[in-house]
């Protein structure tokens, strides 16, 4: 499994790419493997605001349904609408075409609470 060094991670298996005042969010390689084939993605509305840890969307696989939790507090400024047609991109390219939302971060300090690639992999071995 692949966990790029330049991303941040949450214990609920989201990844976060820090792009200044904005972040891009998706599900990790581990999450997509656990969920197996994803068949449906429910995206948040653009402009909606979430607190850190709030459910911002839903991914549905043949096996199960899982929430996508907002890794930061902020506002959704863009979503990956193509996932409606191609939910499988979360499986095939979780860090690329499978991105889920782009958010404007309220407080950059919050990112310090996220996990590094190494810490995230450490947390996986405990599962």
């Amino acid at each position: 499994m692949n966990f790029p060094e330049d991303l941040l991670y949450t214990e609920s298996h989201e990844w976060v790419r820090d792009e200044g005042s904005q972040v891009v969010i998706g599900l990790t390689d581990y999450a997509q493997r656990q969920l197996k084939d994803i068949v449906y993605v429910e995206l948040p509305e653009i402009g909606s605001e979430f607190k850190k840890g709030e459910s911002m969307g839903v991914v549905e696989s043949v096996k199960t349904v899982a929430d996508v939790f907002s890794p930061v507090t902020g506002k959704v400024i863009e979503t990956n609408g193509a996932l409606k047609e191609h939910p499988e991109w979360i499986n095939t390219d979780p860090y690329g075409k499978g991105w889920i939302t782009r958010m404007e971060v309220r407080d950059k300090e919050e990112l310090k609470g996220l996990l590094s690639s190494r810490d995230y992999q450490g947390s996986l071995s405990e599962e």
Partner: protein
Amino acid sequence: MRNIKDTGLIQEEPLIFELGRQGRRGYSLPRWDVKEAEPTDLIPSTLLREEWEGFPELSEVDVVRHFTRLSQWNYGVDSGFYPLGSCTMKYSPKVNEEVARWSGFAGVHPYQPEDLSQGILRLMYELEGFLAEITGMDHVSLQPAAGAHGELAGMMMIRAYLQARGERRKKVLVPDTAHGTNCSTSSIASYQMVEIKSNEKGVVGPEAVASEMDEEVAAIMVTNPNTLGLFEEHLKEIAEIVHRKGGFVYCDGANLNALMGIVKLGDLGVDVVHLNLHKTFSTPHGGGGPGAGPVAVKKGLAPYLPIPVVEKVGETYRLNEDRPQSIGKMKAFYGNFGVLLKAYAYILSMGSEGLRRVSEMAVLNANYLMKRLKGHYFLPYDRPCMHECVFTDRFQERFDVSTLDIAKRLIDYGFHPPTIYFPLVVKGAMMMEPTETESKQGLDRFIETMIEIAREAEENPELLRQAPQKVKVRRLDEVLAARKPKLKWTGEK
């Protein structure tokens, strides 16, 4: 027939649209004694039905065979062991069906006047009394047509009660081991759902509720026994915590099959509970219904019950719609009467001792299954269960065999698989509910098969990955079916 490929007696069956031949008929009419006319000459074209390309034309025997063959593909509780957990799928005694077909019941009409419907009304009145007695509640409405519908009725009553007192509460607490419908019910009733994590013993701890409970919370929705098949042993204490802050306790009674005659939910502080007659009370389950999800309440909520309410005045029964605080009608007329009737017949034929025995046997059977399979499959919550138990594929993971493979292999042995990958709090869950009617021999056959499958997983895992083999269709492409569903015949090949 040309397009039927024989595979023994299990035949491929085309869609009915593919079976038709132009001009084939299932009827014959006598010779016309009026002059033949074209519909287009008599009826304005805007009112004429469009001709429909591909409408199947078949003879009577074509239709009968088609549907008979399809029915033979069914596997149900009448054909064999059906250990599907979380949704009690139990055998429905045929006497209930017999009673429901009596002409006095089958011929009844909803517009029949009250004085000609006294027997029907009495039956409903008495059934409400039985259900109130079994649950330890004060009043019952038989109207809701399904469990989730009963939940909604219950949450609407809670909301109406709070609104009448000028309280604007916003949240509903739902444990992570609840039924999925609880979350959607709270949301449809305009509440925000707050998830409560269950503790390491698989039940809701009072401290978890206390830390979320405040004056914003309208209710907690608890399923007892929960979806891990465990008894929520702190429910009474939880109810006190919720009541102290002015909230209500809603109990999802879908798992009542474990409790009848042993625990009265009302005694545990439950304010509202719905029952699934198509689970616990042995009315047929599945196929989309009809179901029945009566909702029972404590006195304080009675004014809000859906209308009409069956009342007994002297020796006569009547339907009362004059209840200004009611949440209104939940269903046309008065619920699915045929289903109510079967549940009534079931309760009477079992009697109070019989119902207690049902619950005892359901719990005993599940514990027997759990005890014998423990060691072969991983048991995440190793403690006595109620009417169902939950295993996982953890022991089989190292052979690269998953819950899905185990379930598919069971089909080769002629068993319906248990519920899989639910509850969501357990990874790779297999949830088994044998119910009370399974004999020890039947249980042993299933247990030995499960043990055999565990052995196969170790020695020949490919057998599981390739399962099922002895079926008409093997593994279906569930991914494609979910991503690109084809919901109706379009004529395209």
